[in-house]
């Protein structure tokens, strides 16, 4: 299972731990896993067209994922994923 680390900025909206483990082979599956535990969080990370929000940054094993299609973001079984506010959002 991947380990997901959250920005504290997201914790103001959901009772998130600093990190958790989530099942999923792609970023989309990880987000869906998070949604099942914290309903509503998916709409903070994805827009209505299921694209990653422009100013939310995802890092997979230290490499920033630059595409907006979360289904194409491959996540290895023991990956480390960071969810951050991008500086581009101000």
């Amino acid at each position, binding site marked *: 299972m991947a380990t997901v680390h959250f920005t504290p*900025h*997201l914790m103001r*909206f959901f009772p998130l731990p600093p990190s958790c483990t989530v099942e999923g082979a792609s970023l989309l599956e990880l987000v869906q896993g998070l949604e099942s535990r914290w309903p*509503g969080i998916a*709409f*903070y*990370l994805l*827009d*209505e*067209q*299921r*694209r990653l*929000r422009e*100013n*939310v940054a995802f890092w997979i094993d230290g490499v920033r994922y630059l595409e907006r299609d979360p289904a194409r973001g491959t996540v290895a079984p023991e990956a480390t994923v960071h969810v951050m*506010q*991008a500086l581009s*959002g*101000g």
Partner: protein
Amino acid sequence: MAISNDRILLGTRKGVFDVRRRQGHWRVDAPQLPGQAIAYAVRDPRNGSIWASLDHGHWGCKLARSKDDGATYADVEPPKYPEDAGATAKYYWVIAPAPADRPGEVWIGTEPGGLFSTKDDGASWQLNDPLWKMCVEQKWQGGGRPGAGIHSIDFDPRDSNHAYLAISCAGVVETRDGGRSWAHRNAGMTSVFDPNSTMDFGHDPHCVVMAPSRPDVLWQANHCGVYRTTDGAASWKELTKKPLVDFGFPVGVHPTNPDVAWLVPMQSDMVRTPVNARLSVVRTDDGGETWTEHVEGLPSPAYDFPFRHGFAVGGDGDSLALGTTSGNLYTSDDGGRSWQCLSNSLPPIYSVRFA
């Protein structure tokens, strides 16, 4: 519940400020939803709920509501564009509780041009398909914001199926059947930014308000001037008189006298600061034929101004409020003839509504 004269809700860059007047003195307390950008805040006169549109930026726009008169807020599942709409909500620009004969119904105008409504007090939202179809097929463009946006919603108090929207940049649209169909109502407007300046649609009204006492009268601050209609938007009459009745964002109308209205003049679309760097409010008492400028209590020099939702008229028509881009808040008790500064240190103010 009537709109009061003693309570103002501010949507600001850093929260909702609930500003109240007690024993004749206004007081600005700490905000609710602190640190969060509030595009718009409004109190529902039917039940006292306060709706707030949140512009989270990174996390997308969201919705919150207070059911305890502003003491606490809870998230409300926000409107979302359906997958087949091919769009995503960028901004919930205006929130309009429907008239009393439509309990549980609220409309939200959004960027990129869609109108959402709930009939179950926010439990679910529906995109207005006929209007969205117009937006897509007619390719409405943005004005002020990257995408087209609905910023003004006016329900006819005589008939809740009858309403107007103002959209940057489509113009004014009207429905007479509760939103099942829409028609452009831009006759008389001239938009110099388009070679086809009197086109059927594509205009940029900055703010449109209906005169509550005579709903066929609507006032409009437009990117290209000032307009008024007295025939329910079948036609618009231009009232532009440079330099003070020309470019600006908000417009206010008296609750019981449709001939009384206010504007906050700005230099021009190229220089968006107050005329001659002096913040002023202009008032007409004769339907726009003549205007009087009022500056008492307003600063000079001044380089900030109100956004389109930054001016409000209280229930008595004498209580006014003006909030600016730099977080300055002013009130008037005499219909705009003189003003008092309540604060110079608020966050940027996006909306001002008497509650």
